[in-house]
C-alpha cells in the first residue's frame, strides 16, 4: 500500500525525539539486564564461598582436636627382674617382655589407695594400650636404662583423651564424663590438678599407620600409600598420555581406526571409576598375579582412569599450538619429529601439565576402585615401597568414618585435612612447574 499524502510517510519515519526516547528506553532495559546478570554471578560466587567456608569450618572444627593428644606423666621403674629376669640383655627377650606390668606399677604408685581387682582394672584402663610400645622402644634403644627410674609421658586412652579435651575446653563433650566411674573421675581430677596429665602435640597421628586404638592410629601409612600410588600413576599416565596424544594429533592419518580410538578415549573418560577397579582386579591381580592391596596395583588402576583425561587435555594443548610454528619448522627442513619435539611439545607442555594435574587430583581422591583391589584392608604397617600392602588416604578416611570409637570422629576430619594438604602441595608443585615451562613471549 502506497501512502498518497506526505503526512503518512513522515509518521512512518520516527522523529529524532521519538528515536532518542526509544533508544533511551532500550538502553535502560539493557543496563538493567546487565546489572541483574552481574548480581546473579556475584550471588553464585558468594554461595560457593559460603559452602566452602562451611565445609572447611566443619572439617577443621571437628578435626583440629585430633592434632593434640592427652598424655600422663608416669615415673616408670624399669625393673630388671620384670623385663629381663635372666640378665642376658638379649634383644629377643627384651622385645617380648611384659611392659604393662611397669605401667601398672607406676600407676599404683601414683594412686596408692587402689587395692581391689576392679579398681586396679579401672585405673589401668586410663592409660592407652599403646603405652607399652613406647616403653619397649625406650628399652630397646637403650638397654642400660634397666634397673633405673625415669619419668615418661605416656598416651592416655582415647576416651580419657576426649574427657580431657572436653574438660580443658569447658564443655561437656557429649556426656563423656558419664562413661567413667566416680572413682576414675576422681583420680583424673587429681592427676590433672597435679599437672600429671596434659595435652601434647599428637606426633603419633603423623608417624603411625592405622590402629584399632584411636590414640595410636595415624595417617602416615595411608599418606605413603597414596604417595606411592600417585607416583606410579604419574610415571605411567603422563608419558603414555602425552605420547598417545602426540601420535593421534601429529602422526596418525585420518582413518576409520583413528576415529574409533578417539571415540573410545572420550568414552573411557566418562566410565565410572569402580569399573576400573573391577578391571584392575581381573587383569592385574587375577591374571598377572600382582599382590593385593599394593600401591603398584592401585597406581595401575588409577593410571587407567587418568589416562583418558591426560590424553584429551594433551590433545587440546597440542591443537592450540599455532600452525604457523609448525610451518616455520617444517619450512626450514625440520623432520616431523623434530618439529614436534622442538616446537610443538614445549608450547603444549603447560596445557598438558594442567591436564595431568586434573587427572592426578581426581586419582588422589578416588576410593571406589581401590576397594576392589583390596586397599580397604586394615593395614597397620607403614608401607616401605609400592609393592608392600598399604591403604590410601581416601580409603583410610572411609574406614575411620565407619569406626565405632568416638575418637575417630576427630581423626577422620584430621585425615581429610591431611588429604587436602596433600592435594594442595601437589597442585602447588604443578602450578610452579607450569609457570616454569610457560613461555614468557
Amino acid at each position, binding site marked *: 500500500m502506497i501512502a498518497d499524502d506526505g503526512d503518512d510517510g513522515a509518521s512512518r519515519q520516527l522523529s529524532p525525539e521519538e528515536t532518542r526516547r526509544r533508544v533511551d528506553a532500550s538502553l535502560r532495559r539493557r543496563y538493567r539486564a546487565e546489572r541483574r546478570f552481574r548480581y546473579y554471578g556475584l550471588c553464585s560466587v558468594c554461595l560457593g564461598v559460603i559452602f566452602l567456608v562451611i565445609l572447611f569450618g566443619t572439617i577443621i572444627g571437628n578435626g583440629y582436636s585430633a592434632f593434640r593428644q592427652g598424655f600422663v606423666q608416669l615415673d616408670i621403674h624399669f625393673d630388671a627382674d620384670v623385663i629381663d629376669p635372666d640378665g642376658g640383655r638379649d634383644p629377643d627377650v627384651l622385645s617380648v617382655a611384659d611392659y604393662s606390668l611397669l605401667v601398672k606399677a607406676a600407676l599404683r604408685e601414683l594412686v596408692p589407695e587402689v587395692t581391689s581387682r576392679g579398681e586396679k582394672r579401672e585405673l589401668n584402663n586410663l592409660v592407652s594400650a599403646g603405652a607399652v610400645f613406647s616403653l619397649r622402644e625406650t628399652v630397646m634403644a637403650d638397654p642400660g636404662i634397666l634397673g633405673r627410674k625415669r619419668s615418661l609421658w605416656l598416651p592416655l586412652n582415647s576416651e580419657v583423651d576426649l574427657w580431657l579435651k572436653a574438660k580443658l575446653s569447658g564443655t561437656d563433650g557429649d556426656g563423656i564424663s558419664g562413661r567413667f566411674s566416680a572413682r576414675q573421675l576422681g583420680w583424673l581430677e587429681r592427676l590433672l590438678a597435679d599437672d600429671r596429665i596434659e595435652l601434647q602435640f599428637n606426633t603419633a597421628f603423623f608417624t603411625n599407620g592405622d590402629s584399632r586404638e584411636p590414640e595410636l592410629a595415624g595417617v602416615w601409612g595411608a599418606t605413603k600409600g597414596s604417595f606411592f600410588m600417585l607416583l606410579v600413576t604419574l610415571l605411567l599416565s603422563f608419558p603414555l598420555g602425552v605420547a598417545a596424544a602426540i601420535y593421534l594429533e601429529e602422526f596418525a592419518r585420518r582413518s576409520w581406526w583413528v576415529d574409533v580410538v578417539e571415540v573410545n578415549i572420550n568414552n573411557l573418560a566418562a566410565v565410572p571409576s569402580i569399573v576400573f577397579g573391577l578391571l584392575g582386579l581381573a587383569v592385574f591381580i587375577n591374571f598377572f598375579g600382582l599382590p593385593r592391596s599394593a600401591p603398584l596395583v592401585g597406581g595401575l588402576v588409577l593410571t587407567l582412569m587418568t589416562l583418558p583425561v591426560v590424553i584429551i587435555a594433551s590433545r587440546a594443548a597440542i591443537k592450540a599450538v599455532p600452525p604457523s610454528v*609448525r610451518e*616455520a619448522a617444517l619450512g626450514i*627442513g*625440520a623432520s616431523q619429529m*623434530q618439529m614436534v619435539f622442538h616446537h610443538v611439545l614445549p608450547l603444549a607442555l603447560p596445557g598438558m601439565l594442567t591436564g595431568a594435574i586434573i587427572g592426578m587430583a581426581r586419582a588422589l581422591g578416588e576410593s571406589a576402585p581401590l576397594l576392589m583391589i583390596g586397599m580397604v584392608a586394615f593395614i597397620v604397617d607403614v608401607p616401605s615401597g609400592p609393592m608392600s600392602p598399604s591403604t590410601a588416604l581416601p580409603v583410610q578416611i572411609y574406614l575411620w568414618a565407619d569406626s565405632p570409637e568416638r575418637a575417630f570422629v576427630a581423626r577422620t576430619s584430621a585425615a581429610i585435612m591431611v588429604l587436602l594438604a596433600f592435594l594442595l602441595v601437589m597442585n602447588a608443585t604443578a602450578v610452579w612447574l607450569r609457570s616454569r615451562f610457560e613461555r614468557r613471549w
Partner: protein
Amino acid sequence: MQTMDKPQDAVASPAEAAAAPVAPVEAERVAHDTVGDVTAKNVVICVREANVYYGDTHALINVSLDIGRNEVIALIGPSGCGKSTFLRCLNRMNDTIESARVTGDFRLDGQDMYARDTDVVMLRARVGMVFQKPNPFPKSIYENVAYGARLHGLAANRAELDDIVYGSLERAGLVDEVKNRLDDPGTGLSGGQQQRLCIARTIAVNPEVILMDEPCSALDPIATARIEDLIDELSEKYAIAIVTHSMQQAARVSNRTAYFHLGRIIEVGPTDRIFTNPAHKLTEDYVTGRFG
C-alpha cells in the same frame, strides 16, 4: 577457494608428464593453456603439468612453469587462484595437508621432487620458505637463526654457528638492529623485523630457492620497502618465487611474472611486458585493476 569449476581437461597422468623431456619447444605444447614462454634460462625448478586436488576441489590445473637461477618470479592473481598452492608444492608443504593430492612433474635441478626416494627434509633445506605472517619461533633471535643450521649440522662448532647467524642476519639487513640483543625473544621484534628475521632464518640454511608467500601483506609500507630491497639483494644469490597481491610490488621486485586465474597460469612473461602489454584479456583486466 570460492568458486572452482570442475576440471575441464583430462589430467595428464604423472607417468606421461614425467616422460616429457624439458625442452622449450616441448614446453610450448605441454603448457597449451598458458600464453607466453614458461621456460627460463638456467633452470633450477622445472614444473610440468602440475595438478593439485584438495579433496574434490581441483585447485591447480595443468600448471607448467620454470624458475631460473638468480631470477625473481612474481606469482600474481586474484584470491583463490592457486598461486599459494603452487608455491607450497615447490617444497612439498602441501604434504602436511591430508586432503591434498599432487600430480605432475616437479624437478629441482633435474631431480624429481616427489619421487619415492626424495628426502623431503633435504628438499626443504634446498627450497626455503618465508610465510605470509611473520612466524619466528618463540625463542631468542640467535636461536631462531641458528635453528636450521643446527638441524642440518651446518656448523662444526660454536664459532662457525656464530658466523652463520651473523652472516644471515647481515644479509637479511637486520644485524645492526639486533646485534646487541641476540638473546631477546624473536617475537619481541616489530613486524617488519620479524619478517626479516624469518628471511635470515631461511637463508641461514643456504637454500637454492626461496619461496615467499605474500611476505609483506602484514607489513607497513616502510617495512615493505626494506623487504623489497632485501629481495633485490638476495636475487644475486638465490632464485626467488614471490606470491604477491600488490601489482606494484610485483613490478618493482620481479624479472618475470606469472598470472594465475582459477587454478591455471594464464600468462607468463617478463614483468615489464606483462604490466605494459599483456597478451591475454584476463591478464589485462587484472593488471589494469578491472577485477581482482
